[in-house]
């Protein structure tokens, strides 16, 4: 009991402390220039980084000149220790060459350590920012400047194949969490000075680097400006993933449909850039955004361009058919079974009534029950450790399904329907479209359960009206389908041969198309 009270008290104290820290910061933010004395700078930084055990401050001699001192500040671990020792400490402590004696201290440091002009600061806030980004900063006694030594080796994982976008043919590298690596991966694909990379800082607390990248010769200026403006208008505390950005810049934030495309693969990102789209790379996230997005993009896989066009076209057709099946199959079945039995072939009726003879639930609730069970299993499967995955899927899919049929909770046709629905969903390459499909499927299911095919038709009308009415950065979402365009549709519903694609050029070369004046003002 007493422990508990102590805990409460201590937590209250901690709260007080944090308030103090905030107060300190407020007071000290008024001072911005760097002091001449190392000691003052040291105190300032120390107060700034209070309660940060990983801050390292080392006082080192300045090329052994007259006992002059320097202060090296860095955050431990953000840059490799060996690099700091080799390139900074050992050089600073080494004897100085006589030839260089004519130079002043600033030049000496600049030339000896090879520091860029842009990395010399007179502002202490900027120096602190540099420390935070992981580079050591050197303060010299009697000099009102600080020097950032760029040794940043960001920690990150290796480049490997993203598990969400698996291809059988084609490049296998994927983006990592490091911004620089990701930019390099794109630069490697497009060796062109027109490939622009513009940097923004988003997030008041996290100060995350966000880079937009586009091909200035292809991308539409209006869309580029629109993206920039939306990025600048973002008022957010923290950015930990690209989704934080996506939800802010999306045209219809409340829509269930994804209006910004995402990918984890540099080859796809490069293709999007070449098509005239704008890529948004967020530091710390392997998921890269691309805008404007079209609905058909979510049904395309990078693989479509790495296999022959005939096979790719077949794959695309299968995906379109699967999309329709996975959305409407359960609702069509329900509509037929509960309202329009005359549309079922007689021999099928025979097997359906035999299967459903002992099922206590009405067909609609039976299918809602089964589909919900499936969604639960899917969600559980994602969280499950990989080693369990297979066992659970066998138990969940086979044993549960079979037992449910034998126990008479569901009929066999329903199991077939749900299995087909589930399998066809996996043909859709994009993860983003997965949950919108579930929403629509249940919406249709309820409509057809209450109103039959009439309801289903109304539902399809509603959804297609919605899809047709939304735009992503000024481009109609259903573009090559709804404002129908055969020449641009060559790369959407089918995949025309490469030589033909080259001629018509990829989709978003819409410069003189209908984009002009149609960009919606960002609502936020």
């Amino acid at each position, binding site marked *: 009991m007493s422990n508990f009270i102590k805990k409460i008290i201590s937590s209250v104290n901690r709260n007080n402390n944090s308030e103090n820290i905030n107060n300190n910061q407020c007071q000290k933010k008024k001072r911005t220039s760097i002091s001449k004395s190392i000691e003052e700078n040291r105190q300032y930084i120390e107060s700034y980084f209070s309660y940060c055990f990983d801050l390292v401050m080392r006082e080192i001699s300045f090329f052994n000149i007259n006992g002059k001192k320097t202060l090296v500040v860095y955050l431990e671990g953000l840059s490799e220790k060996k690099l700091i020792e080799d390139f900074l400490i050992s050089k600073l402590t080494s004897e100085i060459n006589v030839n260089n004696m004519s130079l002043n201290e600033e030049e000496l440091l600049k030339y000896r350590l090879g520091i860029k002009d842009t990395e010399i600061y007179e502002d202490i806030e900027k120096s602190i920012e540099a420390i935070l980004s992981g580079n050591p900063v050197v303060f010299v006694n009697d000099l009102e400047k600080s020097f950032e030594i760029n040794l940043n080796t960001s920690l990150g994982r290796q480049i490997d194949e993203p598990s969400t976008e698996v291809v059988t043919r084609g490049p296998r590298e994927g983006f990592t969490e490091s911004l620089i690596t990701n930019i390099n991966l794109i630069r490697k694909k497009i060796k062109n000075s027109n490939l622009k990379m513009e940097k923004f800082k988003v997030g008041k607390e996290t100060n995350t680097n966000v880079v937009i990248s586009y091909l200035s010769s292809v991308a539409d200026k209006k869309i580029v400006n629109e993206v920039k403006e939306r990025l600048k208008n973002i008022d957010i505390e923290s950015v930990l993933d690209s989704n934080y950005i996506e939800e802010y810049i999306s045209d219809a934030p409340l829509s269930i449909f994804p209006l910004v495309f995402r990918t984890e693969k540099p080859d796809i990102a490069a293709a999007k850039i070449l098509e005239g789209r704008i890529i948004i790379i967020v530091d710390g996230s392997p998921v890269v955004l691309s805008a404007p997005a079209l609905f058909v993009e979510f049904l395309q896989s990078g693989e479509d361009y790495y296999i022959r066009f005939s096979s790719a076209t077949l794959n695309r057709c299968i995906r379109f058919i699967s999309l329709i099946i996975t959305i409407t199959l359960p609702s069509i079945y329900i509509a037929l079974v509960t309202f329009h039995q005359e549309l079922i072939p007689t021999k099928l009726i025979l097997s359906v009534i035999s299967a*459903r003879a002992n099922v206590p639930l009405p067909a609609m609730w039976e299918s809602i029950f089964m589909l919900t069970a499936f969604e639960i299993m899917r969600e559980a499967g994602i969280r499950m450790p990989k080693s369990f995955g297979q066992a659970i899927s066998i138990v969940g899919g086979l044993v549960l399904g079979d037992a449910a049929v034998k126990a008479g909770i569901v009929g066999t046709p329903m199991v077939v329907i749900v299995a087909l629905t589930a399998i066809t969903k996996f043909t859709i390459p994009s993860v983003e479209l997965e949950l919108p499909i579930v929403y629509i499927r249940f919406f249709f299911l309820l409509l057809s359960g209450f*109103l*039959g095919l009439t309801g289903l038709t109304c539902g399809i009308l509603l959804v297609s009206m919605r899809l047709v009415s939304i735009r992503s950065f000024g481009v109609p979402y259903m573009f090559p389908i709804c404002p129908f365009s055969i020449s641009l549709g060559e790369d959407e519903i089918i995949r025309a041969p490469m030589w033909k694609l080259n001629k018509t050029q990829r989709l978003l070369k819409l410069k003189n198309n209908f984009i002009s004046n149609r960009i919606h003002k960002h609502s936020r």
Partner: protein
Amino acid sequence: MNRLKNHFKRFNIILLVITIFTSSFCLTGCFDKNEIEKLGFVVALGIDLDNHNKIIVSLQILESSDKSQTEKDTKAGKSKVYICTGNTIYDALYNLSKGLSIPIKFSNEKCIIIGKKFAEAGIKPIIDFSLRFNDMRPTTPVLVTNGDAVDILQMQAPENPISAFVIHDLIKRQKYLCLASTTTNLDFANNMKSESSISTCGIINIDKENKKNLNNSLILSGSAVFRKDKLIGYMNAEETRGMQWIKGKVKLGSLVIKTRDENKISLHIIKSNSSLKPSIIDKKVDIRVNIKAQSNIQEISEHISEDMNFNTNPDIIDRLSKEQDKAIYNEANLAINAAQDRLSADIFDFGNLLYRECPHEWNSIKGDWNKLFPYVNIEIGVSSEIKQTGILSKPITNEEGN
């Protein structure tokens, strides 16, 4: 102002959602909702008349097979026949609901079978009943049986216990073979109102003659002839095909012809059509029928003395097709004899043809058509050809024998 507009927009959406939800739950949207297993699907409807002029309706209804049975039975499917009586068809069905717990649905009906007695009394009630509401399809075939329709429904063929399915397959086949007429309920209604008002329909019977066959089976062969809605007579299978030759409906079938030396050759009909040319001169009706047919040689049986090498002697084909002409002519003549002499009924629907081709003259003879028809001069011309002789160019016997 703009804000007010937005406000109304939001209000509208809320209103829409409320309307959709309340209407989907409260309004009549679900009134015809019915779980599939709680419906009785009628696959065959039989109509008979008992001695007291009451209508006996028999229904073959699909049944879910019991789980306890072995899997083989589950696959075959089951049906049950319900019998009910009443003053009208609907009255009988209404009486049935006293004992049948589920509503019945006619949408998947395969055939309507009419007993002889009912057919003689007039089939108007069943045609009316089947077309009045959309529950029953207008494409349901109507068949007549010599006995009682109940027996047909209750018969279980060994390969398929549901007789409606057997009948359905038989009808499908006869659409091309033309040994029995296939007439739907809508056709009946049209024929009743047409100029000649004669309709024919297939006859279904239980095969009793074939005693070697232990299992009962159904036979669909021949036609029943109706004037208006009353049964007036029958035609056998050959006469029926003769009728279909004239109508140009024969699409498949076999034809046996004889060569000069009385040997038989089977031909497989692959195509036929007909053209009719009517003329009315001074109340004298003259109809020219031109039948065109194509066939393949399917079988040459027995010893053939004359040389049947088609490659060396193309005249043989011409000679055979002349024989074929004769055979078709004979069949057509059978039908004409039956129609004019025995039934004196215009089964070929010439009345309609005359009405279309020479409407003015038709109006003058329309009233006496039934009397006039037996004396109509029908001229038949057949031009047929034999397309293929198969991959055997010479008869096998010739080579082995010599």
